[in-house]
């Protein structure tokens, strides 16, 4: 009998713990979960700490890449998916089949900077030259007005939104050469280019600093001004996708770019404000 009682108690305990945890999960609006692009990540984190400070709502931000962000939104494991590209046709279909209605919200603009080692003589390239370097047609810096040295081409993993944007904005139908090295994040590309004299890579504008040199494309330098007025040719929109039209805390969070504080954060991180 005693054993039976113990067993019952254990069962009740387990059930109570189960109820408590599910209750926590049900308390929506008290916690925001963001997942997705490593490009949007720094901005989402800045927004998150600001939002938590002003409203007390807990916000968690994961950076697992745009593709994973979309996946999380489809699987309903996040409230907002940070993405550095628009959702693809097959992702939208997958969302629909899961009963999720992804809504696109533009939070900022971003220029993709083509970066080289600071010691590189080359100051600018045309879009075609960048493409030829990445297809492997141009293999030496001397072919584009630089020193006589082979080019080390660095790209992003195939699950990166930055890689998708690069393919869309620069490569078009062409393929990136098989010889191109592959790195897993903006930061990794930056540190590789900063330590490799003959390397070329691409990162979001927010990641440009003194350790590397951003090249002008078609004669236009990647700067806040040139991205905003659209003269810098390699720029894109950054999105936060929500399930359905944003409401409540999600809406307040998504609308941060319209506030002065949000605008300041966007500029501080190095993106360009859309509003």
């Amino acid at each position, binding site marked *: 009998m005693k054993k039976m009682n113990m067993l019952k108690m254990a069962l009740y305990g387990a059930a109570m713990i189960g109820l408590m945890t599910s209750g926590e999960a049900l308390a929506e609006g008290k916690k925001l979960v963001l997942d997705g692009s490593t490009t949007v990540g720094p901005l989402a984190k800045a927004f998150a700490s600001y939002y938590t400070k002003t409203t007390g709502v807990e916000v968690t931000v994961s950076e*697992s*890449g745009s*593709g*994973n962000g979309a*996946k999380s939104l*489809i699987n309903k494991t996040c409230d907002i998916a940070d993405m550095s590209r628009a959702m*693809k046709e*097959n*992702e939208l279909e*997958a969302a629909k089949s899961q009963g999720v209605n992804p809504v696109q919200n533009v939070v900022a603009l971003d220029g993709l900077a083509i970066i080289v080692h600071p010691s590189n003589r080359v100051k600018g390239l045309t879009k075609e030259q960048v493409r030829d370097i990445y297809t492997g047609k141009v293999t030496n810096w001397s072919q584009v007005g630089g020193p006589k040295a*082979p080019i*080390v081409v660095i790209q992003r*993993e*195939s*699950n990166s939104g930055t890689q998708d944007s690069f393919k869309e904005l620069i490569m078009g139908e062409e*393929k990136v050469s*098989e*010889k*191109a*090295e*592959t*790195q*897993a994040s903006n930061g*990794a590309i930056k*540190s*590789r280019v900063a*330590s*490799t*004299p*003959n*390397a070329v890579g691409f990162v979001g504008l927010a990641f440009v600093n003194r350790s590397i040199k951003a090249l002008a494309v078609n004669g236009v330098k990647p700067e806040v001004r040139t991205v905003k007025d659209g003269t810098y040719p390699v720029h894109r929109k950054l999105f936060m996708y929500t399930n359905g039209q944003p409401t409540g805390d999600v809406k307040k969070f998504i609308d941060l770019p319209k506030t002065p504080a949000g605008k300041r954060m966007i500029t501080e991180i190095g993106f360009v404000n859309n509003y």
Partner: protein
Amino acid sequence: MNGDSPATAGRSSAFIVSARKRKLQKITRMAGESTLFLIAAVVAIIVLFIFYFVARDAVPFFQIRGFSEFFTKTDWYPADDPPRFGALAIIYGSLMVTAGSALIAVPMGVSAAICLSDVIPFSVRQYVKPIIEMLAAIPSVAFGFFALVILAPLLQNFGGPILMWTWWLIASPFLLLAVIVVSELLSTSIQDDSRRRVVQRILVAVFGLLSLLFLFFVGKHLQEIQILTGTNALNVSIILSFMALPTIVSVSEDALQAVGRDLREGSYALGATRAETIVKIILPAASSGILAAVILGIMRSLGETMVVWMASGNSSHVPEPWYNYLESVRTLTATIAGDMGEADQVTGSARFHVLFAMGLLLLVISFISNFISERIVVRQRKVLSGQ
């Protein structure tokens, strides 16, 4: 009979267990045995389950795309439209870095094990072995970070000199040994002692000079090499060899210790030197254990993911020429880790299943090498026991 039967019964009653108790004993024994058997079986079942689930998701890939593209083509564009799944370059990359790390780790590891077990004093060994084994405790991401942030720029900036010094360090003792042995062999035919000594000295001087020139010229060539990118097969091979070293050293040192004092002392008693004892007695006797150590170390290199992902450069092409360790490569493990994020069942099924095909390939390779090592160990044991 009748008279002493109660006495017998009384005396042995301590040993005769009642039927009920015997039954209980049998049940508990069976329960104990089956629990132990179950626990042992779980391990085997886990392996079978992994095999089954990996194979189950790998088969659809081959059904969709066939075998020839995966094994014979080198263009790897899984995200493109239409996708390309040529994995030959990636398979080659895996084999290349594994071979490279084995080339560094096996001679180093076995020599270190010999040194630990037969050369240095026991009291020193007690301190050195735990330090070597500590290498195994360093997380692989720390190794990867080291490779990416320290070793890669180092190779880029000082690649030539590093290669040259490594060449000098490795080649000069071997050449010195070769010069001495060759001059000794060439002069054995001379009968007169003093004349032989003179000829020997001249030969040593001539060959020594020649090999010094050889060392110098190769070194100069190596020094002129500009390593274009530090995240390459060489970088990964070096780091992987560090990671395989503790396994190889530790397991082969155990094998050398297991040879025992009697063989060693027997050898010394017959007048063999320490070098002869090590090379002719201990190493052959411990060879199966050393082989097991080597296979374990190689499996460690083949299966390592984080380091190769961070430090190999991940470019999916076969280096030109094929033995060029200074180019970036991509491995099976890094591809699985890197592409997993996008390759969901939701988006593109071949893309998802190809990663399982790679996992299956890795499993098959490790099963085959385990099987081969097992066979060699068994055969070796037979040879040693004189059958």
